[in-house]
């Protein structure tokens, strides 16, 4: 269970966790890895909007959600 993010560093940690899920996706079921990454990024996105000082990370989360959509669509990053 991930603790609720309270600092920008916590939000970045979620984004970095999503990055690792995507990077290592080919070692497991990619669809599951992408779904977990998306869930993690949606958590990060919500936190970026509410945690003081974390607003700049909103775009980072959105960029990665777009990346996942392309991966799931068959086109790649």
């Amino acid at each position, binding site marked *: 269970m991930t603790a609720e993010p309270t600092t920008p560093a916590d939000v970045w940690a979620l984004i970095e966790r999503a*990055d690792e899920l995507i990077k290592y996706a080919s070692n497991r079921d990619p669809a599951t890895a992408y779904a977990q990454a998306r869930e993690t990024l949606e958590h990060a996105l919500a936190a970026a909007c509410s945690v003081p000082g974390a607003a700049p990370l909103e775009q*980072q989360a959105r960029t*990665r959600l777009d990346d996942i959509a392309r991966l799931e669509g068959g*086109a*790649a*990053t």
Partner: protein
Amino acid sequence: MKLKRGGQEDLDGRVPPNQRLTRGWPVLHASPVPKFNPAIWTFRVWGEVTNEFEIPWEEFRALPAVTTTSDFHCVTGWSKLDNTWEGISFAEIARRAEPKPTATHALIHAEYGYTANLPIDAMMDDDVLFAWSHDSAPLEAEHGGPLRLVVPKLYAWKSVKWVRGVRFLDHDERGYWEVRGYHNRADPWREERYSWQE
């Protein structure tokens, strides 16, 4: 050779801070593994150079090759030591392209639009090459085959897999991961992992 707690070898300063040794070779990348077709594959060099060129696989493989041995450090925390690579040095590519005096950086282009940026000075080191072989075997597709860049002194996202070309620039331009919050320089000995450290 000393042993650390947990049995991990202390290799006298060869492993950067907060890295752990791996004896395997983890597979990670941000896109699917592309299919290689030597009939249509080309390597392109363009931008701030006197001699732009684009050559097919066969011609690329005929360039004078070098063999190097170096360590490899991934930002996700693992290091793999004593990798032997064979390929074409970046210096050889630069020699053929003749960068203009205004050229300061290179943007490495790979399949699916992946990029990574590097200063040309760092690329001219003897251990920087475009490799097609690892430990005397053809580089496997999952590790970047048929061709990947190897930049041992920087975190491995700069060692771009599935390379298709180099664009020489008169300015710096952040690549795929550099735009996504990772460090522009990526020196593992300074733990340059994130852009906010810049």
